[in-house]
């Protein structure tokens, strides 16, 4: 088994999702290479080299990879990937964007969003918005896989001494170009890796009322999420969405406020360790999975909660 892991980063820092993917790779085998593709990304390669289970870090440092355009990264992964038994990336927006392109070029199926590894060619993955779990076996010689990061622990990231090798060949399809990126600046932790998440739903009534969650999030060091209903209603941007069509989270504490608990939303948070629901409708389905339910008007409960934390 030799495994290629695709690192997720912003050319400066390695994203923690990569460590979850490496820990999935550790289950599959002991020969693990990590591809760092970017521009001026040597700092990232150096932090990958410190992961004890990694054998080699492959650095593709070129302008063509600077903005992680799927056309170029997909081609690069396919060109490097033919000697590996498994190619793994996180099921993040980058992983989902690039990896199927590589799989198609290698003429193999992709197994998306795996939540467990049964053996080297058998995997579990959620289907139908997490309502069912499928166990699938691949007959391809190369298994191309995206990994549900919340289903795997983080690998150790200190003490390793992997070699760093540069990839000289440049994959540039030349059909796409980057224009701009608008990433919300926030001091809060990232939604998918936060210890505590507080989310608002349709019950928040409008975007301004999400400020009621902010004070609590600040006190708890929590990330703020939202249900699809809140996103569809235009209260908050889509990158805050928790659910099957949004982000999958599994924090230690998840607080659902004014969220009824549609199956779509539950699929994105039901693996949280402790779930709290605050909703004025005592029949709301969210209470069926909540460890602690508070039937209350959120406009009274939230200020009180903030003052008592």
């Amino acid at each position, binding site marked *: 088994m030799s495994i290629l892991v695709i690192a997720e980063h912003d050319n400066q820092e390695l994203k923690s999702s990569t460590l979850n993917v490496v820990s999935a790779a550790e289950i599959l085998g002991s020969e693990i290479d990590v591809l760092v593709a970017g521009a001026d990304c040597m700092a990232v390669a150096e932090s990958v080299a410190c992961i004890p289970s990694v054998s080699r870090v492959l650095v593709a440092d070129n302008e063509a990879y600077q903005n992680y355009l*799927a*056309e170029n990264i*997909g081609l690069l992964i396919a060109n490097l990937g033919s000697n590996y038994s498994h190619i793994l990336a996180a099921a993040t*927006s980058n992983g*989902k964007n690039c*990896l*199927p*392109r590589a*799989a*198609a*070029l290698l*003429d*193999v*199926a*992709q197994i*998306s969003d795996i939540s467990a590894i049964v053996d080297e060619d058998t995997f579990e993955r959620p*289907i*139908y*918005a997490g*309502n*069912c*779990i*499928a*166990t699938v076996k691949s007959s391809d010689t190369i298994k191309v896989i995206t990994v549900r990061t919340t289903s795997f622990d983080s690998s150790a990231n200190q003490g390793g001494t992997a070699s760093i090798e540069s990839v000289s060949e440049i994959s540039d*399809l030349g*059909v*796409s*170009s*980057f*224009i701009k*990126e608008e*990433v*919300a600046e926030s001091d809060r932790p*990232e939604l*998918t890796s936060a210890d*505590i998440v507080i989310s608002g739903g349709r019950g928040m009534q409008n975007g301004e009322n999400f400020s009621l969650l902010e004070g609590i999030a600040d006190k*708890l060091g929590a990330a703020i999420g939202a249900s*699809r209903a809140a*996103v569809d209603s235009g209260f908050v941007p*889509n*990158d805050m969405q928790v659910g*099957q*069509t949004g982000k999958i989270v599994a924090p*230690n*504490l998840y607080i659902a406020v004014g969220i009824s608990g549609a*199956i779509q939303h539950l699929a994105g948070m039901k693996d949280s360790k*402790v*779930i*709290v629901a605050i909703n004025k409708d*005592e029949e709301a389905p969210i*209470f*069926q*999975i*909540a*460890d*602690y*339910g*508070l039937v209350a008007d959120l406009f009274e409960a939230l200020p009180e909660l903030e003052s*008592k*934390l």
Partner: protein
Amino acid sequence: MKVLVPVKRVVDYNVKVKAKSDETGVDLANAKMSLNPFCEIAIEEAVRLKEAGKAEEVIAVSIGSDASQEQLRTSLALGADKAILVKSEFDVEPLGVAKILKEVVNKENPDLIILGKQAIDDDSNQTGQMLASLLGVAQGTFASEVNVADGSVEVTREIDGGLQTVNLNLPAIITTDLRLNEPRYASLPNIMKAKKKPLEIITTDDLGIDASPRLTTLKVSNPPEREAGVKVESVDELVDKLKNEAKVIS
């Protein structure tokens, strides 16, 4: 400009799906079937391009059994001009779908291909990317805004933490995210009109494609149920439980 929109027949999003008791698959007996919601957004976007005078023709294509004609008729009622069904008696995986679509693209020569970002049955999120890769063209996945210009298209994409805008040479692939548009409902006159629009039926053999599956589903099971906990009476009790019982806050 010609726009191709591949669509998929899936279980309606309101149906609560469960595994069969023998775990051989998903129990879909008598379940309502619909057009995949992301595909509906794709059709809507193509029809809006046509209404804005930027596209001349919208073609819907689906791969599946005869039953998929129903979703193609829905697509025609929503504004597509013609439809193609590529008949297959087994479930085709995303790679196979991409290979079949590549042949359809080579025949129809569309300038833009708009797909849903994922189907709500297998949640694979692969087909658009694979098709783009096989065609060697650019892709704008998870699109929340699309602006077609001469020879290129500008796509704003939903990414983790925000938005990214890219410029793609045509022909290009776009996959739709939720906020791209709000699909219309088909009106009765349009449903009637759709019955008379052309719907061509071909087979995978006609295209000379081997779309046989690479994956075997060994079992389909229900996820472990989470049990309901307790109701607390007050914010004070909630804070106390979180601190002293669950020990998740300090």
